[in-house]
């Protein structure tokens, strides 16, 4: 064949596709970059964690495990962790489900209070919530103890017990259950219940035999979420449990690292144990949910507005209960925080105290460089994390949902891995990585940025995939057929359509990174404190009044951010639950 023949033989099309093979298109480059980044964030910390736990300079070794779980500590740790998690789950599930049922299905009074209470976990970070409850129910300085002393004798409440831990964690989580169950009750066709009533079942029988079995999937996922968040919870066990040597996994890890010299291998061993429990929990719930799915087709995505049931003579009782709940979850913790922030030094309330209230603490904050740095760091990290996560997850969501690239399912799974990594474990794993890696970011803000990006990747992915799922693929295909390239289609059609969802995710991630504590506690270095770390330090130093003022500032900032998040969320039909 002559050269001329060969040239003639090749059509233009073939020529073009050969070029494409040599030079990566923007699509290939971007997709590969995103996949690599997600893989790096999800897998590298875990790899280093296992390596650092099981290997030292001499090779495989289990000394870390011996030191972590030896001396019968294993049994105690497991017992404490599980009773804490299960106790908190039982409390929050009972309270949350009851409130959700009342709210959706009955003509309950004070409905506005429900949603005020439901945003508490977002606007009052766990650390502030825990400290508030210390102010309320510590045996020494607790305001409630003072109030109850005349009736029950001295210090009837002790927050520094496993019951105290369960109380604080359970109350703080109950709004999460509430929101999940409200969604479940709303999406259930009320005629299912009505037909049970028509068949002659009593209200209670209907509840037991129809309503609860139908919302079982939502109940199961609530249980699981609360169990895992309680297991991962750091602030409650650290602030309440360490006082009386009640250790759970997270506080033990912190304790092991804080003693000198820090025992990294033992901390790693504990982290691996905690990770295993979390993974087991997720696996069990998948199994249960998988068995249940398909059976529950009756629950549609439709929103129903059933006629609310009249409570009759129970109304005053239920109303009182709700006021009590609201006082305990919202009012008391916030009021005690504000009260403390206005004191010159911490003491119990009396007439003298109220006449001596002062704003000195806030003035002091203005002069406290540390506080301003921390506020700035928290905001910067929040904005940076939110922007990076949403940008990368928008592409990742496209790959997972729209593309037919092989391995897209794996990519989606990878983005959800951090969901089962407790914050403290992630912090530990990242310090393993960057203590050993030549990248000099240990002790800088960048390591915090990486930690936050990893931790909130799943949330970003969920927002991005949800909004991607709402966009018909025909909108994208019609752009392709119109002649637009992949990147042009993405930029001009997908991105504008995704924008509301991405914005909602952005604000949500900004909110949650703004208050992050459990990963930061192992990764920050002096000078790089974020807001929650500064509060933690001030608590340990006993600076309660300045801390309270800082806490109030933090809550106010979060109120602003959460309000924006809800405004956007309501507009695009996404909820921050």
């Amino acid at each position: 064949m002559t050269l001329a023949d060969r040239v003639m033989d090749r059509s233009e099309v073939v020529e073009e596709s050969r070029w494409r093979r040599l030079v990566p298109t923007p699509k290939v480059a971007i997709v590969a970059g995103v996949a690599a980044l997600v893989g790096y964030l999800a897998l590298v910390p875990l790899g280093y964690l296992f390596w650092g736990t099981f290997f030292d300079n001499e090779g495989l070794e289990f000394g870390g495990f011996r030191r972590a779980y030896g001396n019968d500590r294993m049994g105690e740790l497991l017992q404490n962790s599980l009773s804490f998690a299960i106790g908190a789950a039982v409390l929050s599930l009972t309270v949350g489900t009851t409130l959700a049922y009342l709210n959706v299905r009955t003509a309950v009074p004070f409905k506005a209070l429900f949603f005020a209470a439901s945003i508490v976990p977002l606007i009052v970070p766990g650390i502030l919530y825990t400290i508030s409850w210390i102010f309320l129910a510590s045996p020494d300085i607790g305001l409630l103890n003072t109030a109850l002393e005349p009736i029950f004798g001295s210090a009837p409440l002790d927050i520094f017990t496993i019951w105290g831990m369960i109380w604080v964690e359970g109350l703080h989580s109950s709004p999460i259950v509430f929101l999940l169950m409200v969604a479940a009750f709303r999406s259930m066709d009320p005629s299912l219940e009505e037909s049970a009533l028509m068949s002659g079942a009593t209200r209670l029988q209907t509840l037991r035999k129809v309503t609860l079995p139908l919302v079982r999937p939502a109940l199961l996922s609530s249980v699981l979420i609360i169990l895992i968040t309680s297991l991962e919870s750091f602030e409650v066990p650290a602030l309440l449990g360490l006082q009386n040597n009640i250790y759970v996994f997270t506080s033990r890890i912190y304790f092991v690292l804080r003693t000198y010299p820090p025992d990294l291998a033992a901390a790693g061993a504990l982290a691996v144990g905690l990770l295993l429990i979390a993974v087991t929990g997720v696996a069990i719930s998948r199994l249960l949910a998988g068995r249940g799915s398909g059976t529950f087709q009756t629950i549609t995505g439709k929103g129903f507005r059933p006629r609310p049931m009249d409570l009759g003579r129970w109304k005053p009782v239920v109303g009182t209960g709700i006021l009590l709940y609201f006082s305990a979850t919202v009012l008391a913790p916030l009021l005690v925080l504000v009260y403390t922030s206005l004191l010159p030094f911490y003491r119990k309330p009396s007439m003298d105290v109220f006449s001596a209230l002062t704003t000195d603490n806030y003035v002091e904050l203005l002069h406290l460089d540390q506080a301003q740095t921390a506020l700035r760091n928290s905001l910067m990290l929040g904005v940076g994390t939110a922007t990076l996560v949403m940008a990368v997850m928008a592409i990742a969501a496209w790959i997972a949902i729209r593309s037919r690239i092989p391995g897209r399912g794996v990519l989606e799974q990878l983005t959800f891995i951090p969901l089962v990594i407790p914050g403290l474990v992630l912090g530990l794993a990242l310090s393993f990585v960057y203590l050993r890696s030549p990248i000099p970011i240990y002790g800088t803000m960048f390591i915090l940025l990486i930690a936050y990006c990893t931790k909130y990747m799943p949330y970003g992915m969920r927002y991005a995939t949800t909004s991607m799922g709402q966009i018909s693929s025909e909108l994208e295909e019609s752009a392709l057929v119109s002649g637009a390239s992949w990147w042009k289609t993405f930029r001009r059609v997908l991105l504008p359509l995704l924008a509301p969802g991405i914005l909602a995710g952005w604000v949500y991630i900004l909110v949650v990174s703004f208050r992050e504590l459990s990963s930061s506690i192992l990764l920050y270095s002096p000078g790089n404190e974020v807001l929650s770390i500064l509060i933690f330090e001030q608590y340990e130093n006993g600076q309660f009044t300045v801390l309270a003022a800082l806490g109030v500032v933090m809550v106010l900032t979060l109120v602003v951010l959460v309000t924006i998040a809800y405004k956007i969320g309501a507009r695009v039909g996404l909820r921050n639950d």
Partner: protein
Amino acid sequence: MLNIEKLVKSFAGEKARGRRRGDAQAAVFAVNDVSFEVKEGELFTLLGPSGCGKTTTLRSIAGLEHPDSGRITVGDRVMFQRGGDHGRSVNLPANQRGLGMVFQSYAIWPHMSVFDNVAFPLQVRKRSERPSKAQITERVDRVLETMELTPQASRQATKLSGGQQQRLALARALVIEPPLLLLDEPLSNLDAKLRESLRYELKRLQRELGITAIYVTHDQIEALALSNKIAVMTAGEVVQLGKPREVYESPANKFVAEFIGTSNFMPGTIGARDAEHLTVETANGKLYLQSAAQLVVGDEVVVSIRPEAVELSRTSLGAVKNEWSGKVVARAFLGDAVDHVVAVGKQELRVRVNPSVSIEPGSEVYLRLDPTKISLVPVG
């Protein structure tokens, strides 16, 4: 104009790829060896029930599906070729095929105005091929004018009514003046009244603008009303290809006869033959009909009788061919017609007659079957 040769697309087949041919049996063929040709200016319909492969075929032409093998050419441009004796593989991406497509949901971009939606295909062209801003405005205006959307040009696209959205989708597909227009059930989202008026509108536009179009639908009436040619598909294969009247009056098999309109089937054997005039012996008596099929006396056949090919009366006309007697079993008033179920021997026939004829159940009736409207379909 458009040529499809031996198009194959299997779904589970993606995994089986690379394995030996014999192993790929688990693959489900969405499109199995489909070939057809569409001539310039023709409106060609792919008709079939859902899952028959008609949409997959259309999406393969658009470049949104990647077929396993076959060849697709538009004019002299090869859009796709792979396998067989086609030489090198070619698969032009959807955004380089330059075709127009109207999607089932219309896929109108909700964040753009009507004008921007239509301008998009021109704006995204390569810089060297992109018309100037003024030219874009002029061309978009012209298309909007044709589609009678000029007053809505600056409106948000989502604020349009169903019919307007449909015209907008059409305008966007036509603005680049594509050689071929692909229509994926474009009328299925509309209510019955609007669907009917838009059907004629579409036909008029297609004829006036001389567009070559492929139309996918599961609605046989739409297909019959609109098309120059129909390809009836089932299970990934084209089972009949022909003009609407041919497909309706002489269905190639039982599936086509049943899918397009309703039909009564009756088994029989050829009793006598004189050129195209046949006598078929059935359980209910002799039937006289015309067919060019290659059949000899004694062959087993199935006769297909359309409900409207039967005339119904209370009295016999006497010595007429194809007159049977029966008994009305049920009837239903449909507005523009009356359906009767008539028992003839052991069989029940569905008969559709003018509303002026309405015979109560239980009555003895006579049925006359028009020999020119009875067709034979292959056995099995």
